[in-house]
């Protein structure tokens, strides 16, 4: 397969995943901002969501107004990671490798893009919620079409690999912004507002129900940390994402009959999760832990690029 083809597939996967993540961040922020509280003003909540999004800011940009932040994250053409840009980039990448995709997958991605062209801007508040629901639906549709119709060959592995790498990155970024909320067991737990933050964080990644199933307990910060970092049942946890990345890279290595730096790096990273305990992670510093994971994930991205995509 041409490296450019693999690159387009990989990035189509990443952009779709990122669009979904942003839709979830925005949805959670709308919910959080609707709660009256003394500690967090509306604008500080939106500023936090901007940080969580990981979207690059333009130099000299002064984004403080909630409405501006909202539009910046959802629609702005100046923001290369806005939902609008992500869906457009996903479609551009998919179009350039159209013959590598099934008709079902292409029509899902192209259909989403067509719908995007028809939107009347700017959206009202209630329309925004509907839009975010729709974006999440698009990702589900893409996942479904991919899983149900694509051959399990290198095209499929690259598409999936992109999504997995992006998902790991998103979870880690989310944790990095919220790490101060995640406390070791026994620490004094904050008030009502913190409680809302945790539940919102869980909701952001559709994990509130999962939490209750796994821990059978009220929401405690150390459980939240465990769920998002080490729990292998949770598809979005760092450990799960890493295992997924390793699996897809191994399939590629098997198909190509060749293991390279990307496989070795991913497997080495996977070792960190084996037998890991939240206590130990808290002791050595959660923030440092997440920072180091983000750096490793970036290195892995570069290794994949070197080995396959360029």
């Amino acid at each position, binding site marked *: *397969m*041409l*490296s*450019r083809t*693999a690159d387009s597939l990989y990035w189509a996967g990443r952009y779709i995943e990122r669009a979904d993540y942003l839709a979830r961040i925005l949805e959670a922020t709308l919910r959080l901002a609707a709660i009256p509280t003394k500690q967090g003003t509306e604008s500080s909540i939106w500023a936090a969501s901007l940080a969580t999004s990981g979207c690059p800011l333009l130099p000299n940009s002064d984004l403080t107004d909630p409405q501006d932040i909202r539009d910046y994250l959802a629609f702005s053409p100046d923001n290369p990671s806005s939902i609008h840009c992500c869906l457009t980039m996903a479609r551009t990448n998919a*179009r*350039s490798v*159209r*013959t590598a995709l099934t008709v079902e997958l292409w029509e899902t991605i192209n259909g989403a893009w067509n719908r995007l062209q028809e939107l009347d801007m700017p959206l009202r508040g209630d329309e925004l919620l509907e839009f975010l629901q729709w974006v999440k639906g698009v990702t589900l549709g893409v996942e479904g079409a991919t899983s149900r119709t694509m051959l399990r060959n*290198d095209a499929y592995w*690259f598409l999936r690999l992109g999504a997995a790498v992006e998902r790991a990155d998103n979870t880690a970024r989310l944790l990095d912004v919220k790490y101060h909320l995640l406390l070791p067991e026994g620490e004094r737990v904050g008030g009502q507002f913190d409680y809302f933050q945790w539940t919102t964080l869980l909701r952001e990644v559709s994990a509130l129900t999962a939490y209750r199933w796994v821990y059978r307990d009220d929401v405690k910060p150390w459980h939240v940390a465990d769920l998002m970092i080490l729990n292998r049942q949770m598809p979005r946890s760092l450990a799960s994402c890493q295992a997924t990345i390793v699996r897809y890279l191994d399939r*590629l290595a098997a198909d*190509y009959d*060749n293991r390279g730096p990307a496989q070795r790096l991913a497997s080495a990273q996977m070792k960190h999760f084996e037998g890991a305990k939240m206590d130990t992670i808290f002791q050595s510093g959660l923030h440092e832990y997440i920072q180091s994971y983000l750096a490793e994930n970036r290195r892995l991205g570069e290794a994949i690029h070197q080995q*396959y*995509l*360029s």
Partner: protein
Amino acid sequence: MAFDEMNGTGGEIRSPYAKAAQWLANASPDLLKTRSRQAELFFRRMGITFAVYGDTESNERLIPFDLIPRIVSGAEWNGLEVGLTQRINAINAFLKDIYGPQEILKAGIIPPELILTNQAYRPEMQGQRPPRDIWVQIAGVDLVRTGEDEFHVLEDNVRTPSGVSYMLENREMMMRLFPELFADHSVRPVETYPDTLLASLKACAPEDAGGNPTIVVLTPGPFNSAYYEHSFLADKLGAELVEGSDLFVDDNYVYMRTTQGRRRVDVIYRRVDDEFLDPLTFRSDSALGVPGLMAAYTAGNVTLANAVGTGVADDKAVYTYIPDIIRFYTGEEPILKNVPTWRCREADDLKYVLEHLDELVVKEVGGSGGYGMLIGPAATKAEIEAFRAKLTAAPEEFIAQPTLALSTAPTLSDGKLVQRHIDLRPFVLSSPNGCSIAPGGLTRVALKEGSLVVNSSQGGGTKDTWVLED
């Protein structure tokens, strides 16, 4: 009255159309309308579109498809085939000579400056021999008909001719929509074209490429007007569709970047113009090309189809010499005629053209696609005067031809049969094993009543072309 493919000059139905005419007489307008709609829907869903330059509003368009096939008898086709083969063989010999010993210039048949200062002449190719010495692997020759036995070549198109995907898609569509018609006619197949093209390209691979050379299709990218065709052909050939950035040159060999490392490329079916092929040799601002490609090419390590520099043979000024070129290299009389042409670079011709602008078609020698031409009889006084100024300023840039009465063919307009002017572009493949022409080609039709311009960029449509087994 122009010659009509179905009715001739007005008398009886011509024999190739006998059964089709009967069928048309019995087909209900509703059926034809429904089938037209089905065809359009299908083309749109498949994204069989082309982009129109300088048209911002709707830059991806469908080429209108007309349901009524253009039918050619086997005997007519056999004549065309011989004529086309003669012509393309002569053009190959001409290019070999021009970039070699230049005998034809020494013999005084063509003024040397017309070749050597031609924009399409590539001095870089002087003294070079492409692998297997084939220059024009693929030609798309535009033919027009003016009478029962009157075919003329309008253009030779030996650079990067397009349209062959429509020949194949139109046939596919007709077989889908009207299987009963094919049962009634024995139509020669065009479906073998991709296989023939593949065999032909393989046969042109460099000597050291081995038994199974790697072929790629080089496209300028998704924004090119013919991108659909590029991806269509790559699919049919089972070749990678590459852009310049997918290729690189190392030690005068061309490689593509794949997920499993570099892979040598032996034949490049390129749909990128000469000027953009290699920024080291030609336009340094070209992002479409491959640095070092020309070095690999002149080292004989990669085949480009078509060769670099073929444009010097289909320039409209050189076109006027093709009959002489055929005589010079083959010793035969040309079988296919040229359209009579005035060379504005010659004083007598220019004088005549300036006096008859309102009757003539004037074209830029380097132009294509129906852009930048004057159609005298259809132009306003002001347009003619504006053109006169351009022509007087640079007469060597223009040629002029009479407005030909292109033949017409029955065409659907709102469910009714009307007569519209058409041309024909057969595709000629050349390899060391000789020439091969798919029986048929692309018939283009000027959909506007009375219009003689068939280019898709100017509102033309296409038809399926049937060559019958007599």
